[in-house]
């Protein structure tokens, strides 16, 4: 689909917009509908759009698979670290109150960090699953029995 001029121009405009919107939803999760999951899925959708137009190799050159593995684990680890930080500082697991002095900003800081972890994990997991499916097509190659109306 790289040769199709209309698709190329439109996606060149759309993909940065979608990623920007995903970041907006991620960080405004407290004030408007949104949060970690929605932002992660939208970011992954922008990357998938890029892969659909420019090919899987170009997509994997931008975000390699090893990076996706590391990011998906680190998002969950960030979540657990915030929880354990609450324990270390004297409260319960995932208790945000001991994190800062002011109770309101402690809760907000905890929520922002936790949603960041969730968003990173969801985005990298969806990108990873898609690239695993898409790579299968390349691995099967021409020796596979041709698809048709079975």
């Amino acid at each position, binding site marked *: 689909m790289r040769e199709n001029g209309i698709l190329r121009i439109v996606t060149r405009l759309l993909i940065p917009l979608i990623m920007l919107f995903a970041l907006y939803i991620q960080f405004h999760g407290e004030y408007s509908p949104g949060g970690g999951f929605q932002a992660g899925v939208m970011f992954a959708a922008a990357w998938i759009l890029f892969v659909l137009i420019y090919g899987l190799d170009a997509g994997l050159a931008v975000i390699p698979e090893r990076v996706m593995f590391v990011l998906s684990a680190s998002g969950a680890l960030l979540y*657990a670290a915030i929880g354990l930080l609450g324990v270390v500082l004297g409260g319960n697991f995932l208790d945000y109150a001991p994190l800062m002095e002011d109770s309101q900003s402690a809760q907000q800081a905890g929520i922002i960090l936790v949603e960041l972890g969730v968003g990173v994990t969801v985005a990298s997991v969806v990108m990873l699953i898609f690239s695993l499916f898409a790579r299968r097509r390349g691995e099967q190659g021409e020796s596979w029995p041709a698809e048709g*109306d079975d």
Partner: protein
Amino acid sequence: MVAVAVVRVRDLFSAAMLFAIYSLLSAALFVVLDAGDVALTEAAVGAGISTILILAVLTLAPRYEAAIRGVNWIAITVVVITGVCLIWAVSDLPTFGDPNNPIHVHVAPYYIEHSYKDFGVPNMVASVLASWRSIDTFGEVIVIFTAAVAVFSLLSVKPTRPARKPEDEA
């Protein structure tokens, strides 16, 4: 209607498109039912990710479903009996939209009141999700990570040729 079409259409590609339409319609329904976060998630996930994954599998699998001979009476009986039992059970549920329903009375008013007062966070869904019910969200992150591990372990085996090609059976 769209759901019935998804079931009956034999061309799986069209079924995937109809499935995306179904997801978008349910996202619109969620907006009407005052669920902004859920509508956003369902639209992104159902019409985006699920459809993309189904289409990705369809490039690797036959596109047309095998023809269904006759009507599957056992399945229809099971479905009808289950449906009748469920509709009979529905009559015990509370009325739609009544503010005095049991689920609106016990814990929810506390969350609604204290979300902005205690936290300074206007979005009540986010404060419940990330602060009051935070461990559930933690479990869910673990679940989606496990899904990635499972898909990776399933698809890391090199594809081999099938044991018997379909056209070899005479």
